[in-house]
């Protein structure tokens, strides 16, 4: 497999809320390889956005990174700990090495200035001449299948939601970063626009060869775009592995439940199962495995001891935090056979 460009170890993030400390991300570790797409799936509120905002250190004021390291490998092979960068270094690292397409495209563009000005602002912040930025931007706008001249000189309100989403995609690639984080880039648009954005993304990825951290509610979209999948539950990664492994041989009870609840991927379309209960309170998470309260496979030890994230027996690249993974797999087989 290609080299690792981002290695996250034991990252924990919390928010200070009125009720107490919200442990939105706890002890998350994963690696991202050059050119690969890693998708995060999980219920709303499980900490996907928080994790990714923490990666670029752009958390809201109430959020803070409690612990962890994030080693980023630059193109020249130099390794840096993103969390140790000072303000100035961090500012330069942003966007030129790692950019982000935010959740909620409609509001991501400054309503009072032109797209071109946003592009020039970005370029100026990283010492790139205007003319180069313009050429690059027009080229990228063309690549995302927009009318480059028109869009370049437009104000955000003159563009449709789908167009804005593509503009954001183009801007995210402006400085040729190695990593692009995409937070639900297709949730706000209709199915056809979603289709075309995914196609554009795949094309760009092939051409420009960047890595993607992809966040999605939609398992079908994640399955289509990702090389690897990470399932998150209550702020933790509970399972991570290659996309076929996760979808065809899930080992975590929560992943199985998610697949079972998804319309297009479950075996019998008429038998959609919602997951009983609701996600735990992140201020006072339950002891043991955080999923045990909703889990059909839970045994006594699940209530007390949190299972560590470990490689499975037959695939070293497939990690799961579940002691009952064999039973989960067997259950999956049964569903598939039906």
């Amino acid at each position: 497999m290609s080299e690792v460009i981002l290695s996250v170890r034991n990252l924990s993030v919390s928010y200070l809320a009125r009720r107490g400390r919200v442990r939105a991300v706890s002890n998350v570790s994963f690696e991202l390889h050059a050119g690969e797409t890693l998708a995060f799936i999980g219920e709303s509120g499980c900490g996907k956005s928080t994790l990714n905002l923490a990666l670029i250190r752009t958390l809201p004021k109430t959020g803070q990174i409690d612990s962890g390291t994030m080693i980023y490998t630059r193109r020249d092979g130099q390794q840096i700990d993103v969390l140790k960068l000072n303000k100035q270094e961090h500012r330069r690292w942003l966007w030129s090495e790692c950019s982000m397409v935010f959740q909620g495209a409609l509001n991501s563009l400054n309503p009072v200035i032109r797209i071109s000005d946003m592009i020039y602002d970005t370029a100026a912040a990283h010492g790139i001449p205007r003319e180069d930025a313009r050429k690059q931007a027009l080229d990228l706008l063309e690549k995302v299948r927009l009318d480059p001249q028109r869009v370049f000189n437009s104000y955000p309100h003159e563009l449709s939601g789908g167009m804005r989403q593509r503009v954001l995609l183009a801007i995210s690639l402006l400085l040729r970063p190695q990593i692009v984080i995409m937070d639900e880039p297709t949730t706000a648009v209709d199915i056809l626009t979603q289709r075309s954005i995914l196609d554009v993304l795949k094309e760009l990825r092939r051409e420009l060869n960047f890595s993607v951290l992809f966040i999605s509610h939609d398992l079908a979209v994640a399955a289509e775009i990702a090389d690897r999948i990470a399932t998150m539950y209550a702020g933790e990664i509970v399972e991570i592995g290659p996309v076929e492994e996760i979808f065809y041989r899930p080992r975590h009870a929560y992943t199985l439940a998610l697949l079972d609840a998804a319309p297009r991927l479950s075996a019998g379309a008429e038998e959609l199962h919602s997951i009983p209960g609701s996600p735990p309170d992140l201020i006072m998470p339950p002891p043991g495995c955080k999923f045990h309260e909703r889990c059909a496979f839970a045994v006594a030890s699940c209530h007390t001891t949190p299972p560590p994230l470990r490689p499975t027996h037959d695939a070293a690249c497939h990690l799961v935090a579940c002691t009952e993974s064999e039973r989960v797999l067997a259950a999956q087989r049964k569903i598939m056979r039906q």
Partner: protein
Amino acid sequence: MSSLTSSAPKLKRDETASLLIRLRRLTRSYAFRIIAQGLITIWAVTTFTFFLIRLMPGNPVDTYIDALMQQRNLTLEEAQRAAAGIFEFDPDEPLVQQYVNFLSKLVRLDLGKSITKGGTPVLDIILRYLPWTLFCVGVALIISFALGVLIGLAMGYWRGGLLDNVMTGFASIISGIPDYILALLILIIFGVQLQWFRVGEVRGGVDPTIEVGFTLEYIGSVLRYAFLPVLIYVLASIGTWILAMKSSTISTLGEDYITVAQARGLSERRVLTSYVGRNAMLPLVTRLAISVGFVVSGSVIIEEMFQYPGLGRNLFVAIAQRDYTTMQGMFLVITSAVVFANILADLALGWLDPRVRLDKKVD
């Protein structure tokens, strides 16, 4: 021959049709609408004030007679006789007649003559005093708005910081104090107690011993005399600007595009000006327009206290003397200024915010 006769009326019909189309296009155009709206507003307010000031108890003649009796100890008859020669005004003329006269003069831009000031044209009075008020209140408004926006922006951006804590208290207190109380406080503390200036010398608009002209001395004197009124206007209004800008800044900071701008690695200064500042200012523009409109009227009490030769003070005098024509003229100027300022605000808002811009496509 027959073809000729039939084509003529047809041609005429075409002409009228195209004229109608052009007329309709004109009435639908934004500029026309805005101007028409403005004129109607001015007319309505003017009419309203016309009748309102005539509903006030007393009329110019009676008021003058009262004053004569009190000041010079004349009997009623003596005073009436003295007054009869001065006024060209007949208080017994029917109201409607007066109104028609007034309007017919107004359309010729004739504001009439002052009833009490020996027939001085109202326009002359306005032109004489308006510049002083415009200057004094205008400068104060610019300073107060600019400073208020900057301070409010900084307070909102570095919320909870030292500046925020200090200024929030200051702004809340100062925005609650009326301007004349501020004026009194300043006169008493800095004038009477600390003796930084002599209270008697700050009255008026300029040192009367200095010759009028475009000289450094004259301008210096104008500035010196304007200093205290300007300071008071600024202090009286800046608190509101600060608090409005702060709250607008805080709500703007919550917008996604600010986070995105920061994530793009933009410098703090850029984010603060083009992204936070510009968006946070939008709601303040409308408020500014209202203030700009009232620049022409000044503050009656402040001008009276400093004997500043502005419009406000003269309006006060005119009201006291029931000088109908002068009052009408001044109210007309104030109304027009407010209406005009609102049109300006529309334009400014369009310039700042492309979403409300009128010419849709700008390529």
